[in-house]
């Protein structure tokens, strides 16, 4: 078995070290090594977005990143969205507007939507739909989910 590597990262603004084998994806490391199980596995081949995280400011599928590639990276996961007990406006909107049903895709959508709003604070419905096309949701039919993102963007722009 190849040696485990010692990797140093920053996850949700905290410095985090971990050991991993080269074959372990960032998704596996987050879930099975660090027990940050908010990031979900849906397909494990980059086609559903459930494992979305923000890595050095870039939205990625953590199933398509090796844990060892995260050396020196800054990673944002769903666990870091709320701060000091205060929900992120996206979380608030998803909760209040029923932007979810079963909830398995929700962390991925929240992270993807955050990456969008970070880049484009007032996205149109079409821009939201385009940006979120890499995230599959099988429950909502996307209607309330897209509305939740629109509502969150509006509320953030008002502040």
């Amino acid at each position, binding site marked *: *078995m*190849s040696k485990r*590597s010692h990797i140093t990262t920053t996850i949700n603004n905290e410095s985090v070290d971990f050991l991993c*084998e*080269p*074959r372990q*994806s960032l998704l596996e490391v987050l879930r099975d090594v660090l027990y940050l199980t908010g990031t979900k596995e849906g397909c*494990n*081949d*980059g*086609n559903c*977005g459930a494992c*979305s995280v923000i*890595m050095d400011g*870039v*939205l*990625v*599928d953590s*199933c*398509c*990143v*090796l844990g*060892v*590639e995260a*050396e020196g990276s800054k990673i944002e996961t769903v666990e870091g969205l709320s701060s000091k007990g205060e929900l992120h406006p996206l979380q608030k909107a998803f909760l209040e507007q029923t932007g979810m049903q079963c909830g398995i895709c929700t962390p991925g959508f929240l992270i*993807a939507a955050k*990456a969008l709003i970070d880049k484009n604070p007032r996205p149109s419905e079409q821009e939201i739909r*385009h*940006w979120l*096309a*890499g*995230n599959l949701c099988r429950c909502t039919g996307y209607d309330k989910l897209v509305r939740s993102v629109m509502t969150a963007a509006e509320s953030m722009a008002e502040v």
Partner: protein
Amino acid sequence: MHDFEYCAPDSLKEAIGLMATHKSSARLLAGGTDLIVLMRARRKRPELVIDAKHIPELTELKINQEGLSIGASVSCRTIYENDQIAESYPALVDSTSLVGGIQVQGRASIGGNLCNAAPSADSIPTLMVLGAIANVVSDRGERQIPVEEFCVAPGQTVLEDDEILVNVTVPAPAANSGARFLRFIPRNEMDIAVANSAAYVELDETGKNFRSARIAIGAVAPTPLFVEDAGAALTGKPISEESILNAAVIARDAARPINDMRGTVEHRLQLVETLTKRVLNDAVKRAIGEKV
């Protein structure tokens, strides 16, 4: 996934040395959106994975009057978010903004797309019509390979076991030129092309006639196809429905599609014709300064 070693060289020299030693048992890792998935599916089993994202030559994006140079591990997103590329090479934006979803675009690279050599690759027909050159290096020396000669079979390229794709260079667009890439997928995102087509056109000063044209098509043969005859048929021809249809029909006749889970022979042939018409019309619009 099988067990393997990982290293992340920070110089091209080191990477060349590693490839010279490990040859076919090593694979370069750029964005990982193909390689990691293929390893997980047990279709690639390298003993050594060499991360190509810390090698300066492979991560560089340069644009100047002579043209564009894209390091092999530069991400699609870096390419399509570059304003100069959007201005001068919009067809590259067409291609790179279609690879996977936003998440995949943040990692996937043009180098990876080229080396993965999928018949349906979104960037290869565009690189072909733009006259792109793949610059390759090994400890035996360097070589330049026109992109239209790069792929030889599904998943196979002309690269030798020890060679590294460093970058792809694209000449500066000529005056009165325009290019366009389109693909057809059943959904609106997140699919592999059923068929695709790219066109590059140069018009004369009047803007009414083709001076030259290049056409390439994908997902309709074992490799992306550069259809020289289809472009050549437009040389000196007026821009008309008839000349464009003629070129599209030549492109269609060059296609050798198969029936598979993504499409049928008949549909693919029709798509090649339709998409080639559409990319030619759009390329003409871009050549005369219209937005597409």
